[in-house]
């Protein structure tokens, strides 16, 4: 079996991640941040170590690192929480957004918000221009992906945040497809919120996500925090403000091991390896007649490639390739906006997303399989 679905979740996980999860379950650990006995305090300390690691990784402070169950939860907290406090009613998103962004803003739209969508065609300068044309004094927040989960196209998030700041707009970045691959330094990128999955290129277990919260937001979930229990409201300070209830201790410890794995191998090394595979695959697939690529091999992308094969729906092609041992994802990838833009809303695309453990030989095997499928 050859796994090319790393944009959904990375597989396999490093052995160190598996061992860390096992160790977290074996203990001795108890509920972190709840009790004063050694097992609870030890678990809390392990959690804090992961907060420190994530903070350093993204150029943030440990107390700005909020653990969530996935990027979707992080995005919901940031989007709905900011909007609720803003006193404004416009929201700007890109035309590449995943449903983790699109559905929360559609829900707010139902409640009276105005949602504006900026065009991501063209150069970074053109994208920034298209974004700025929608900014007004009444814009509450701008939410944009760092890279499309369909085409892999990268957005100039740092420049977009700079423009948003000039208009007093809160910014939320969805870094689900880039965290662990792209250089994300919140000292440089002036985002208010950064949201990401923990289980993709950060190598953590599924069920982990991160919200780096530098701005204020209302809470989405209320519950126990282990502090200020007599108060009726959640604490005003992060991370406890957004971490009601017991944390996913084994998952977070696994995520910490994922971060350590990246630091050991080198983020740049991992990223360059995946980009090399992407380019190799794109250049070879491009030569097969009947194959349509949705991002040029000459465009910069990290690890995701969408394509279609003439004569096959994306679902049919994925099913045939699956029988030959390839794991690819077909359909809309939970991103109808992006597919609408590509003109593939009715059938979707086949998506190959590469990971650190993939090899060039595996790319050649996929290209051969696609070529054979085409010639049938």
């Amino acid at each position, binding site marked *: 079996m050859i796994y090319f679905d790393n944009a959904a979740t990375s597989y396999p996980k490093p052995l160190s991640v598996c061992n860390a999860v096992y160790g977290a379950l074996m203990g001795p650990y108890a509920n972190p941040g709840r009790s004063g006995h050694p097992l609870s305090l030890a678990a809390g300390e392990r959690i804090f170590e992961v907060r420190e690691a994530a903070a350093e990784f993204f150029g943030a402070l440990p107390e700005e690192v909020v653990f969530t169950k996935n990027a979707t939860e992080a995005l919901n907290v940031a989007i709905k929480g900011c909007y609720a406090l803003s006193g404004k009613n416009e929201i700007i998103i890109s035309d590449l957004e995943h449903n983790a962004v699109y559905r929360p803003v559609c829900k707010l739209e139902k409640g009276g918000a105005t949602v504006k969508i900026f065009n991501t065609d063209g150069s970074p300068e053109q994208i920034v221009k298209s974004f700025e044309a929608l900014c007004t004094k009444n814009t509450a927040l701008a939410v944009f992906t760092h890279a499309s989960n369909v085409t892999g196209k990268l957005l100039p998030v740092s420049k977009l945040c700079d423009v948003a700041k000039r208009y007093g707009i809160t910014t939320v970045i969805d870094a689900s497809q880039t965290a662990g691959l792209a250089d994300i330094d919140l000292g440089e990128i002036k985002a208010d919120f950064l949201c990401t999955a923990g289980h993709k290129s950060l190598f953590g277990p599924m069920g982990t996500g991160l919200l780096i919260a530098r701005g204020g937001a209302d809470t989405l979930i209320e519950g126990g925090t282990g502090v200020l229990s007599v108060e009726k409201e959640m604490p005003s*300070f992060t991370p*406890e403000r957004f971490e009601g209830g017991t944390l996913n201790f084994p998952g977070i410890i696994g995520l910490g091991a994922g971060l350590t794995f990246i630091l050991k191998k080198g983020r740049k090394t991992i990223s360059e390896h995946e980009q090399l595979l992407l380019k190799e695959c794109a250049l070879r697939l491009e030569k097969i007649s009947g194959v349509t690529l949705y991002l040029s091999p000459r465009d910069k992308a990290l690890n995701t490639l969408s394509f279609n094969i003439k004569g096959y729906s994306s679902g049919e092609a994925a099913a045939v390739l699956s029988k030959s041992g390839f794991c690819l994802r077909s359909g809309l990838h939970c991103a109808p906006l992006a597919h609408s833009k590509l003109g593939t809303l009715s059938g979707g695309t086949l998506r190959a997303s590469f990971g650190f453990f993939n090899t060039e030989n595996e790319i050649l095997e996929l290209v051969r399989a696609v070529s054979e499928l085409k010639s049938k």
Partner: protein
Amino acid sequence: MKKEISVKSFTYAMKGKRLLEKKAISAEVIKKAEDCGCIYLIRYDDKGSGFDVRNYLLSSGVKLSDKAVSP
């Protein structure tokens, strides 16, 4: 001599502990139940050098609590 300083949360207690350790001051985090709910304390070694721990933690971004500061 051991001293304690109260902080807003476990996260700030850990942050404070790390900061003190960087200054070669040994510290531990403890949790106590008070009538306002639970509070976290940093218990540290005060070597009597006159180093202002409270001010150091505060200026380093540790949110202190006014609930309890015990000698």
